[in-house]
């Protein structure tokens, strides 16, 4: 491409641009590193540093956080809802998208319209809350899974993807007498793998990060998800932290509430940070698929 020599202005721009991007990356990562270093700090060290290299490292904070029974229960609930919720959401979304991707499905535009409308208008917080309560789902895992089982946005993306597949791939199976359910599972799903992986990750990360539904639908602490437990410990400054930092067998305070809080945040963040580099490209692919065929 670059046949023409870059002008002086363009060189200056390049220097500026590369530096700017570098600074942007630093700004993005620094808060995480700062908190991470804070979570490893003992006693007063956390109070004075800007640098991200801790002056002395202790894992005491993590030990306290990980042995907290509420955090463990929270992790269990989060994993349960993520696995079960993602699985059920995928089944329902794909089963719904397949018929509506067929031109010959009766009243197809009407049904699609019914679904897409919910992207723009909804009942909102209170009517949904009352519905969940009336269905007796309070304090159950279903309150965290059913209300957002299918997202209209995911539905549209999956349907568009299925519509772009050639009809011919299904024909031979149809001649062999397979019904639509078998065709969907055996023929269509395998070629939908890219979009399946993308949507699965979206739903899974959504479940992993959710907390508000748990806050309003699960009153019992042992039924709450880890994000909510974290929130209660860190933001609401609940008694938990105080208990964790003072109930020391030797009576000595080796940890500060601040570094304990940092460790709590980190315990909920680290799983995301670890899988993020591997899943990131699928997410991007999905956004592209969704945006290019609106």
């Amino acid at each position, binding site marked *: 491409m670059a046949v023409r020599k870059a002008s002086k202005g363009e060189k200056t721009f390049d220097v500026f641009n*590369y530096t700017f991007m570098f600074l942007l990356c630093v700004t993005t990562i620094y808060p995480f590193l700062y908190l991470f270093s804070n979570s490893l700090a003992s006693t007063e060290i956390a109070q004075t540093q800007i640098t991200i290299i801790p002056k002395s490292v202790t894992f005491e904070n993590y030990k306290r956080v990980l042995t907290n029974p509420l955090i463990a229960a929270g992790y269990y609930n989060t994993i349960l809802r993520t696995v079960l919720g993602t699985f059920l959401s995928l089944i329902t979304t794909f089963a719904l998208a397949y018929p509506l991707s067929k031109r010959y499905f009766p009243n197809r535009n009407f049904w699609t319209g019914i679904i897409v409308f919910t992207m723009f208008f909804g*009942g*909102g*917080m209170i*009517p949904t809350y009352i519905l969940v309560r009336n269905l007796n789902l309070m304090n159950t895992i279903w309150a965290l899974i059913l209300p957002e089982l299918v997202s209209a946005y995911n539905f549209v993306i999956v349907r568009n993807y299925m519509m772009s597949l050639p009809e011919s791939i299904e024909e031979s199976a149809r001649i062999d007498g397979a019904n639509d*359910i078998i065709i969907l599972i055996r023929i269509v799903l395998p070629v939908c793998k890219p979009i399946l992986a993308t949507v699965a990750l979206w739903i899974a990360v959504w479940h992993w990060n959710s907390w508000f539904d748990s806050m309003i639908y699960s009153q019992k602490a042992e039924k709450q998800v880890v994000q909510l437990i974290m929130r209660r410990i860190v933001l609401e400054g609940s008694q938990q932290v105080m208990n964790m930092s003072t109930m020391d067998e030797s009576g000595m305070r080796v940890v500060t509430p601040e570094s304990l809080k940092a460790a709590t945040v980190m315990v909920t963040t680290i799983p995301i940070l670890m899988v*993020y580099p591997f899943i990131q490209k699928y997410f991007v692919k999905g956004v592209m698929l969704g945006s290019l065929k*609106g």
Partner: protein
Amino acid sequence: MKTKTNSSVAENRFIRTLYQYWKYRYLVILFLPGIIYFIIFKYLPIYGLVLAFKDYRFLDGIMGSPWVGLKHFREMFALQSFWEVFRNTVIISFYNLIFGFPAPIIFALLLNEIGNTHYKKIVQTISYLPHFVSWVILGGLFMQFLSPSIGPINILIKSLGGTPIYFLADPKWFRAVLVVTEMWKSLGWGSIVYLAAISGIDPSLYESASIDGAGRWQKVIHITLPSMTPVITIMLILNVGKLVNDNFDQIFNLYNPAVYKVADVISTYTYRMGLENMRYSFSTAVGLFRNVISFTLLVIANQISKRINDYGIW
């Protein structure tokens, strides 16, 4: 004469449609769970909006509770706290639109000018990261990061001889914190659609521009930006439609009573009134008011976009 033929035609069509459903019964089986989900969990709550015109009584349920007409709306419009909340919502969304909307576009354009593919990939990967972290976690993170005693920004300010700023408790600073942290979180992720648009541009356009002697800057102005216009328009429509849809997760996790005056927005207000104070009907009225405004804005923005450049989201 009309009625008879019309009714028999309608009857015929109805029977034919029923037959179609039967013919594709396996598809219907697949379709049912999803559509039932939408009817129960999306349309029943929409029906539940009638609560805004009733006085909800737990024992009577939504159906049995007495109608009260526009009582809750009248109360809402008479309340000063409601208008304060409404103003906050509009101001914060407006700031987000002004600063947050162009940022990913500029970021995408700058990123596109990075020649080194490796460097570009790394920058992209890092910039998407905050999108994957929930506001609960970020709330905890920023609380420490912006803390007047241990936060690095304030440590820096102190070491430079300034007085520490209570970013999260000072009404003067809080909205700025909201806008900046929102930009910080969504800048990279928001740029993806624009990068997709840029990558879809025909390279021959750039080649012929180079032959005509166009510099980098001219190519951006005359080729890249015009090619991005449809995407930018759609994103703008969506953003305008969301002007009264505040970022509940962000605000709820960052705010505290000290800054309610500048940060309490419609959704946090709905939550506090409805679920904390149990004023279900009043809260539903507030939520309905917001929904109707945001839906109207979306329709208007879409209409305008269709008229101006023949391009809308529906």
